[in-house]
């Protein structure tokens, strides 16, 4: 893409792309050597976060 995402917005801007907060987010799914965390952005687009099993990026 080089191309596609929008410019970053100020963090307090209305309509920002924060992931929808869930009271009980689903547990990450295991897929091969990675764990998959499924989120939904405020505008409805999906966001998948992948972490190597055993690693802790967040």
């Amino acid at each position: 893409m080089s191309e596609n995402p929008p410019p970053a917005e100020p963090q307090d801007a209305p309509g920002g792309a924060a992931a929808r907060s869930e009271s009980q987010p689903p547990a990450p799914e295991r897929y091969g050597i990675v764990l998959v965390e499924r989120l939904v952005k405020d505008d409805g687009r999906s966001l998948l976060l992948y972490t190597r099993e055993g690693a802790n990026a967040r």
Partner: protein
Amino acid sequence: MSELRFDELRGEQVVYAIHRQDRTFLPSRENCPLDPTRPGGPQTEIPVPAFEIAVFDNRFPAFEAPLGAAEVVVYTDSHDGSFATLAPERAEALMWVWRHRYEELGAREDIEYVMIFENRGVEVGVTLHHPHGQIYGYPFLPPIAERERAADERLGECAACAMLRSELADGRRVLFEDERVVAHIPYAARWAYEARVTLRAHRASLLDCDPHELRLLAEALQTLVRGYDALFARPFPYVMVVHQAPTGAKPPDGHLHVDFYPPLRTAEKLKYLAGSEQGAGTFIADTVPEESAGALREAIARAA
């Protein structure tokens, strides 16, 4: 929503995605939308302070449900670097991410073909420098995939398997190889430093690869890109495309290979698609693959 129009004379689809006209174009470093959202910093596409690999729906998609998909794959939360500078374990994880997306997108009824790719460098139109790639889910079988399928029928066997046998027997264009993966410049490469990374075994897609093959594939891709960067001692622009079996076919068949289409023919000169390429569909090359392979082998050795 994009519009598909079919050109009868050329026998091809054209995608009109006019909403992409306003997509982000070379934002400042501090406004990179692919960075993580750090405390006190700007909101980005990825609203967490750190991540390993992220995939999200493109905000300006060429395709979207119910007629395809367009996703962005961010390789790292570090703004700097490239696919080549990822830690080996991150590159290996990326193979699993690609596999996961191929499997999920390919399972959709509206998607006939899943193409994973990376555009690197402003020379090929990149407008965000953060290391990332993309995935398109096509609602039709695009021409290159159709040609590969036709080649299998023409040869009466897997064309990629046949070509790999031929390349290994000749050897002059082989860049490097290991027990599972071979990298070479194709006999009839279009681009001066075009390269193909192929699984030795017939693997229709990443889904058919075992974990060892995925690890070696990641290693081979990084070895090649590091060699590219060493070739002219500069970041080497390319289009990288993961060719896999069409997902609309039952059963899906093809032969996984990753192709690189670099536009540079020298350190400063670009190959342009001009009269013959656009008007006749015939590439005119200024170099021969055997000589390019020699230069690229030396660069790969320097980068090791």
